[in-house]
């Protein structure tokens, strides 16, 4: 079987935060490769640095030291504006609380990332329609987030993350705010994106059921990679 190349390469990553005059190390000398097309679950206790790692991979935060290569680009060397441009083209972010813009309709929320592209209005419409069709919400395109259920909002958020066809998708507790049925729908959708569209997905989760949908799993503890406790991953819900 042919070994896939690494989509994300993290080398000797350090990250700390300053809190009330104290420096709190969050990630310590972390090295990790994530293969192209992988659907990886990132687990670990609260405060272990999962979200921080996700932020760094998505270019939302900057490491103290170390390198982050995503699709061959060392994003630690990019300026703030270059990083913004890079994010627009290469990363789709899915949040726990969907983070849709409440004054925009589902259609407009999905259209947002395309505003930054050179696409014409007609092309944008087509892309948005395709992305909403993918999450089966084409009939809700004129609804505002407040008029949609949690699961529907998260599907709109996934549609928004996908609409620019980014190289990687990062999801921070995407099912954390959803009921079981909606969570199942969202996870199935992500699974399909990984299998059918070949997207590289990195998902932070506390939920073993969600993690089981992934194809690989990494466990983070006190800022370093550790072996996963059996109970977390292997026990069915």
């Amino acid at each position, binding site marked *: 079987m042919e070994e896939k190349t690494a989509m994300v390469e993290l080398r000797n990553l350090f990250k700390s935060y300053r809190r009330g005059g104290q420096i709190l190390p969050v990630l310590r000398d972390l090295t990790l490769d994530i293969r192209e097309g992988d659907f990886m679950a990132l687990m670990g206790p609260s405060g272990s640095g999962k979200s921080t790692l996700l932020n760094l991979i998505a270019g939302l935060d900057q490491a103290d030291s170390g390198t982050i290569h995503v699709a061959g680009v060392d994003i630690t060397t990019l300026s703030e*504006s270059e990083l*913004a441009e890079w*994010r627009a083209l290469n990363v789709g972010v899915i949040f726990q609380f969907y983070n849709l813009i409440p*004054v925009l309709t589902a259609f407009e929320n999905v259209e*947002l990332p395309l505003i930054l592209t050179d696409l014409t209005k007609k092309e944008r419409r087509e892309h948005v329609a395709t992305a909403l069709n993918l999450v089966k919400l084409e009939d809700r395109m004129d609804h505002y987030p407040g008029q949609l259920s949690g699961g529907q909002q998260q599907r709109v958020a996934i549609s928004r993350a996908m609409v620019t066809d980014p190289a990687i998708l990062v999801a921070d507790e995407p099912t954390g705010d959803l009921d079981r049925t909606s969570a199942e729908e969202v996870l199935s959708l992500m699974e399909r994106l990984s299998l059918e569209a070949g997207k590289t997905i990195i998902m932070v989760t506390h939920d073993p059921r969600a993690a089981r949908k992934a194809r690989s799993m990494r466990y983070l503890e006190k800022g370093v990679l550790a072996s996963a406790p059996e109970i977390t991953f292997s026990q069915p819900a």
Partner: protein
Amino acid sequence: MLLRLLFRNLLRHKLRTGLTLCGICVAVLSFGLLRTVISAWYAGVEASSANRLITRNSISLIFPLPLSYMERIRGVEGVKTVSYGNWFGGIYIEEKNFFANFAVEPRTYLELYSEYLLPEDQKGVFLRDRRACIVGRKLAKRFDWKIDDLITLRGTIFPGNWEFVLRGIYYGRDSRVDESQFFFHWDYLNETLKKKESLMADQVGIYILSVANAGLAAETAARVDRVFKNSYAETLTETEKSFQLGFVALTEAILLVIQLVSFVVIVIIMAVAANSMSMSVRERLGEYAIFKTLGFGGSYLGAMILGESLLVAVLGGTGGVLLTFPAAKIFLDYLGDYFPVFLVTKQTVIFQGLAALAVGMAAAVLPIWRAVRVPIVQALGRVG
């Protein structure tokens, strides 16, 4: 999309937006009214002609000049027409009915002040009848005076009851002309004073000169004053504008206060609008972080915040400008006696517009800085 966002964001907190709009509207309205008061103060200066000079006693305006100066002034090179007059200071029935009233040499005065338009037939009667007077359209309306009405003024500088017959009602060539004045024959005043053997007879308050060339006004003024140098009543000749500015200068402190208040009003509303924008931005920091996450740069966020702030300012400002006109009319109805010319000028409207824009821009500065500077993870609350 940006415009859609601006309008929808504006409607998120209708009460807050409404109150901010009201605040800006009232501030711009107040600013406009105060600027109009200042303009009204300068109405005399604005209405003055570059071709007219005023000659008065060099010691003070309250000291008169002899009538005999008339011919000598007329003989000065550059002088075209000479008229003269006195501030009469008469009171109509009671003191609160104040209006400006002058005894003037009517023929030359009307020639010099061609902006006072008087129907030819009325002018003819006015010039022939020594007890005749003419009044401005606004003044006639104020006291409901009609042609041939008998008007009695009680003299303050020149004691006694003075009777006049209204022979004409003038109107201004344009809206800047004061239509609330009262003019009568200087001869009528002088002859009465002579009869009373008053020392004030044959004395003139000011001479009004027209010059052939406005460019030589200063030179002509100097020539006039040289003629009377070392006489017992030396003269001071200046342009009509300087003469009017002299009156304005007497109330400079009040004007300064009004100007200051007009700017303070704008500064206060700037703070209010900035506070309102800051509240909105603080509430939406998470959303701005989403925009950043999606790849939107600081300039887009800046445009969004500035746009919203300017939209509020422009809407409020437009309301303020539109309300200034009816408000000025109400103001004039109540205080027209003090401000014969009270017009909202184009310049005032421009100042109001600029003030509204300044409010919009200033209110956006700190919120933009904050929204652009805050790290994404901090705004999203995803640290740790």
